[in-house]
Each structure stands twice: as structure tokens, then as C-alpha cells.
């Protein structure tokens, strides 16, 4: 398939690229923009490791053709925060030691970001349902749940939703 010019807005910056329009967004993020956050897990939308936010909603980048991404705001794990200035969710995951191998953790954080964007104080059931299709093989579920609860609780306590950094 012939390549096309496309402009992608990723983590607040525009990138002009020449790529196959049917190329999955994941490979463009990883290979052209050299982002490590979104991971290749299955290429089938089953595991969630590749998750990004598109206009503030969680999406599986391994399945999304890059052609549909023009004009939309894409946020990756890197766009949430950094080691020095982490997003409250990243901070909660770090404090709860919510990663073993950590390969799935990008998806867990991005799914949580999207959940808290629309429901700042989810119940335990709502958290579990939201993450039901994000697979973790190390069995870090307990720590991840604790991190999400903390991130949600922090939002509640502060009274200022973490939307101060909320990517849209």
C-alpha cells in the first residue's frame, strides 16, 4: 500500500509523517516517534498493553489504522508525566509498587486515566470491570487495584480532579 502524508498530534506536539495509512498506530508511535510506553502485546486488541488515549478515551493502538488519527489528540504514557513529574496515577502506581515485569502496566495506567477522566471515584467493582480486559500475567492485580483506589481517592480528597493534568 502506498504511503501518505499524515500529521499526528501526540502528547501535545504535531508530527508530520509519511506512512502507510493502514499502519497500526502502535508501530508509528514506537518506531517513528520512538515512544516506549505503548507496548506490543497481541496485535489483536485482547491484552491492552498497547493502550493510548485518543481524545481522552482509552484505545488499543495495535488495531487502529494511523489514517484515522489525523486531527485527534493522542496521549501516551510519556504524555501523562515523567519520573520527575508523574501524573497522579503514575505516582500511585509507583507508591504501591504496582509493577512486576511491568509490561502490561502502560495499559493499566492508560485505562485508569480514561476511567478517572469520566468517573473520578469508581467503586471497586467498577475498577475491576474497567480493567477486566487488560491482562496481567505476573499477578500484580492486588497492587494495581490498590494504586487505582489511591489515585481515585486522591482525586476525591483533593477536591481538584486530576483533570488539572488530564489529557483531552
Amino acid at each position, binding site marked *: 500500500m*502506498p504511503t501518505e502524508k499524515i500529521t499526528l498530534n501526540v502528547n501535545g506536539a504535531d508530527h508530520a509523517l509519511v506512512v502507510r495509512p*493502514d499502519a497500526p498506530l502502535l508501530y508509528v508511535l514506537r518506531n517513528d516517534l520512538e515512544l516506549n510506553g505503548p507496548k506490543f*502485546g497481541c496485535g489483536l486488541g485482547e491484552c491492552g498493553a498497547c493502550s493510548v488515549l485518543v481524545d481522552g478515551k482509552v484505545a488499543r493502538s495495535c488495531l487502529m489504522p494511523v489514517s484515522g488519527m489525523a486531527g485527534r489528540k493522542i496521549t501516551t504514557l510519556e504524555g501523562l508525566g515523567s519520573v520527575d513529574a508523574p501524573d497522579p496515577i503514575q505516582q500511585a502506581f509507583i507508591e504501591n*509498587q504496582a509493577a*512486576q515485569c511491568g509490561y502490561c502496566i502502560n495499559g493499566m495506567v492508560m485505562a485508569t486515566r480514561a476511567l478517572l477522566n469520566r468517573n473520578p471515584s469508581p467503586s471497586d467493582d467498577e475498577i475491576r470491570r474497567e480493567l477486566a*480486559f487488560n491482562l496481567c*500475567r*505476573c*499477578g500484580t492485580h492486588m497492587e494495581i487495584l490498590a494504586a487505582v483506589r489511591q489515585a481515585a481517592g486522591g482525586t476525591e480528597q483533593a477536591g481538584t480532579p486530576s483533570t488539572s493534568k488530564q489529557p483531552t
Partner: protein
Amino acid sequence: MMDKPMTAAAPTVPNSRRAFLKGTGCLLVSFALPLSVRRAMAAGPAMDAGSQLVSKNQVDSFIAITAEGKVVACNGHVDLGTGIRTAFSQIVADELYVPLERVSMVLGDTDRTPNQGPTIASASVQSSAVPMRRAAAQARQFLIQQASRKLGIPAGALTVSDGVVSDGNGGPGLTYGELVAGEAFSMELSEDAPLKDPEEYVLVGKPVPRVDIPAKLTGGLIYVHDMRVPGMLHARIVRPPYRGRDGGEMVGNSFESVDKDSVAHIDTLIDVVTIKDFVAVVAEREEDAISAARALKVSWKTPPPLQDLSNLAEALRGNPDKVRPLEHKGDVDAALKDVPGALRATYVWPYQMHGSIGPSCGLADWKDDLLTVWTGSQNPHNLHSDIAGLLGLPEESIRVVRMEAAGCYGRNCADDAAAEAALLAQHLGRPVRVQLMREEEHGWEPKGTAQLMEVFGGVTGPNTLAYKFTTRYPSNGSPVLPLLMLGKQSNVPVVFEMGDRTAIPQYRCSDTSIDALDMAPMVRASWIRGVAALPNVFAHESFIDELAAAEKADPVEFRLRFMEDERPIALVKAVAERAQWAPRPAHQNNEPKENGLLHGRGFSQHRYVHGAFPGVGASWCAWAVEVEVDPKTGYVRVRKAVVGQDCGMMINPAGVTHQLHGNVIQAISRTLKESVSFDENGVVDLEWGAYPILTFPEVPDIDVVLMPAQGNPPLGAGESASVPGAAAIANAIFDATGIRLREAPFTPERVKAALSAHREGET
């Protein structure tokens, strides 16, 4: 100046290692692994197979102090996502009286770290950390002696704090950097270097945050999957049709032809590489490599049909075996002749996947006549030798660098991907990245093998059993795929003697007959968490429950009758107490609750014994679980698991707790949900829909009981916690329903079928 002792002693050390030492090392402490850990190949993964570029005679492993006073510690074991890098750092920092952040660890780099065997069996703290700690202690002792000489103060009057040696009374002090600057030292490790008193530990034993986690949460460069080099090409492998089989005449001999025109339309295609059964496409862009792999027309011979694996017990009994006696005492048959409650039972464990969330990846690059291979292998030194053999190159011209990868829990395709990348990099003379697709990892990862355990046993006295046990474990080390595809390694499967792990029951026996029936794999199979021990303990701990039920005894009290060692007895009591276990026989008056669900509880305990027989004991572990069973659907849910472990001293208690959680969840997943299906070609389950694992809504409450160390040395933690899980759940299902499930997984279909057969039997 470090070159001198190193080059004189070990002329084969490659340039990069010398550069590394030059840049960092001014003090080296070497040590030799105790001979007792060296194993024969047949006993399992050889502990010292693989490359040995970091000479054991001179510098087996070492501590280096830089001129800035930083500590570089090297270990041949790797961090599989378990927090070993942090635990090792704690050990070294504590022993050298420096802050944690001043220690950096180099793990599993064939140029820089000694070959300490594969990172398996959760044995890193128990085995490979011990000599490293000794090296650190000796380094400290040496530094104090240096300071004594330079300051003119007796060594006994000097103290160390924060990497500074001084008299502790405000007198002049010397930093480690000042003490080693300008001079090189190398010494053999002394067996009796005085270790820091555990009472004085400030880092070891504390729940220190893992050093790797912040970068993992923010997209740092940690994983081999994220490694990029300039000009890197993307490859995809086109696998032969015998999916997940590595034994038999067809292996390496099935390729017929390839139609390269079928991929001529791919824009950035660089090459189609075919060498016997190794077929790869290489492109500049990853999506093009994927498209090419899908489009490439390859003609293969039809593989001979795989034997029918739908009835595993039958297949395992039919697989040729060699009896290897493990323990024979008295005469079990005679002892049980007149015992009315003697039982016979057969237990079956299914084929299972390691199920790494990230399919394996490897990257290889030629530069200045040195091939560097980045890999997520758990055994980089062994992989190093494999790659040297595959490429026909001396080990000195290859460097294998271990990076983190998705958790592997045993042998996955990490080595295969790295070797394939190396092969392609050599072929093309350019850097090549090989990324397996999901269906390749599912199809080709060496499976955790199916296993068959047969038990005949009974009570022969007030506190003795007679016990006959056989176990069939058709699994080996899984040769690296390209070696097989190219015909460089025999396609006749090797028999590994690994079925013995925890085959000896841990109850007092008057008579025993314990045999491993060693056999070759039926499909590609290698170690997975708990190795043979998990299925063996499924049998032991189900069987002891069956005996308890036959005597209408409480399962915990019944076990305690036959237990001898204080530590597991204390652990069993502690776990029972935490679970509020009230003594009663199993399956007594169990009526459905109002919601129609049956509730049950189950207990199980064992110590994981691994390594070549008779093996080494890791932690003791005990489980008490609560399950609910829906009799209408057969759906089993674990509601709560109380899991206790006695692992002696804990380097990082938070890390141990996290590892316990992980092992418990994975063990529940394997027990309730997981088995691999096969057709006549091979593996059928090629994505997560066909091979589901436990999800968030299904995760139970987990309550962890960690026994006090009481001065006991550290034992392997984590993996031990997987081992008793399956039996605890089977025992709880029996308590809830009165049905005894002897074949895992306990899927709704299987439970429902057993329940209806049970009801028919009653009527």
C-alpha cells in the same frame, strides 16, 4: 591499569569487558561458586553450561568500586520482573555501608558478569546472592585495611559510614573512591570474610521501593522490546506448520519452496531469508515486515500427525519412559495389604503456557567485528553458547546483553528470538530486530508440560503412611529453535531428569516407593513456575486430603499427625489460625447458600524442593482457600486465599509479598482455567481468546502470612507459593461438592460434568 591483571589472567576477555573494567573498576573481589551447585546436563538445566568469558578462576563475579566511590556489583542472574535487581542492591549497599542509590547492578551480561547458571526456581537470593554478599564484605574489609595503612590508625579503631572510612570521632576520613584511586587490586574471595551482623542491617529486611518501577511507569528504556539501534531492520519469522513441536524427523526438514514474488509488492522489503526450515522476511518498516510475513507463500511438507493428546493420561502412559528410583523404603504393597483405607488415585496436569504478555523479542547488531545481542533471556550465558554454535563464531566475538522483558515464568521464546536476530544480522550484515507475533509465542513457547502422577497409599500407624508414587514429566530444556530449524541440533528430543522436583512426600512414611518415569517431550516443553513440583504437589496434597476424608478427619489436624519439622508445623498452624480454620471433616452437611452457590474450604502445604535430585529446599508454603461453586454452571470462584510462607530472612519483605500475590494469582489461573489444546499439526490456541487467564473480576482477596525469620538464612521465595495452590483449590471443591477433581484445570465444563456424574452415582 585494570587491563593488566585481567589480560594476563584471562586473555580471551573481549575489548568491551576491558573497557568496562577500565571505566569503573579499581577494586575487584573474585569468588568461585561452590562445586556442589554444578550439575550434570541430564539432571536439568546445567548450572554452568554456556559461555564463561568472565573467568571463574580469576574473577567469577565481582564488586567494583569506581574512583567516584560508586559501587558496581555484577551478578549472572537476571531480574525477571521479580525485583531481584533491588534485592541485590540492598544486599551490596548494606554490606558496604553505602546508600542504595550509590550501587548499580549489572545483571546477565556475558562480557561483564559471571555465569551463575540460569535464573530459575526463584533461587537468586538463596544461591547467587550469597557469594556476592561475601564479596562485598571482603571488599569492605580490604578498604578498611587500606584506610588503616593510609591513616595510621589500627583497623579495629576504624568505622565505615556512607562509604567513608574514619575513626568515627570526627577525625580525618577517606572515601572508598580515595582508597582505591590509582591502584588496582584483585583477590580471591575468602570463604570466611566476616559478614555484617544482620542486627546492623539498615537496608536488608526493609521494604525498599523497587529501583526499576519509576522508569517502567513512565516509558523509560528498560525492555529489550524498546531497544533501537541506527539502521535497525524489522524481521518476522514464518514458522513451519508443525506448530509447537520440536522433536521428530520433520523438524528442520519440512521446507519445500518459497515464492518470493508473493511479497514483491511490499514497499520496504529487504530480503526473504530461507535456510532449511528457518524462513524470515526482513523489511525497513515493522508493519511491512508483518505484511510480508502474512503474504509470503511458502510450501511445506505436511508434518506427520501429532499423537492424540485429548486424553492426557493415556498419552502420558503411552510415552516411552525410563524408571528412575528416587526413594525406596520398606515394602509399600505389604504394608498396605490389610489397610482398609488404602487408596489409589491418578492425577493429571495439563499442558500450560507461560503466557508472557509481551511476545519475545531479540535484537542483534554487528559493529567492529563484535556481534551484540540484546535479549530478555533468563539464561544469557547459555544463549551465548547457542548463538556461537549457530553462527559458527567464537564466543569472544559475541556479547549477549540481557535487558528486561515481559515476565517469562520459565522458558519462553526469548532465546529463540535473540538467536534468530543474531542469525539474520549475520546473514544481512545489518542490525536486525526480531519480534514474535502473538500467535508465534502462543504456538511455539515451550509449554509447561502435562504430567501424570499415580499414588497408592494409606495410613500404617498412628503417625505414619505408606506411599507409592510415580510421576511422568515429558519436558526438557527446549533447544533454541533456529538450531533445530537449521539442523544444527538433533531433532531427537533429549530426556531431562526433572520430574523429581518435590516428588518425595513431606509426611512421615513407614514405607515408600517413589519413582520418576523420565521421558522425552511429546511437544515442545520446558520448565514453567514450580516445574514438576507444582503437579507433584497437586497429587501429594490432594491425596493426603483424600486420606483425611476417608478417616473423616479434619484436613489440617490430619496433616499435622504426619508432619515432623517444626517450621512447616508452625506455618500450617499460623495459616490455619489466620484463616479461622475450625476443625471438622471435609464435606459435612454442605447445603447450597441462599444464592444457590456451594461453599467450601481447602488446605494444602508443601516445601518446594528444586534442583537436581535430591534437590534444595526453598520456602515452605501453605494455602487455605475459600471457594464457591455454582452447581448449575460448574463455575468455581476462589473467594479468598490465605497464603503463608516461611522463607527465612527476607531481603525485601514488600517484594516477597508482591511475589506471593503474583504466584497465588497465577496458580489460581492455571488451576481453574488453563490448558493448551492440540490438533494433528500441533498447538491450537494461538491467542488469548483460546487460552484465557484470570482477569481482575476473578481475583480473590489474598491474605499473606510471612513467618518471622528467626535468624534463618534466606530461602527462595515467590515461586514456592505457587506449588500448593492447585490442591488447596481441589480440596475446597471437594469440601463444597463432595466431588474429587483429579485433573486440572477445574473448568466449568469439567466441574459440571463431575457434578452430574456424582448425582447419577447417588441415585
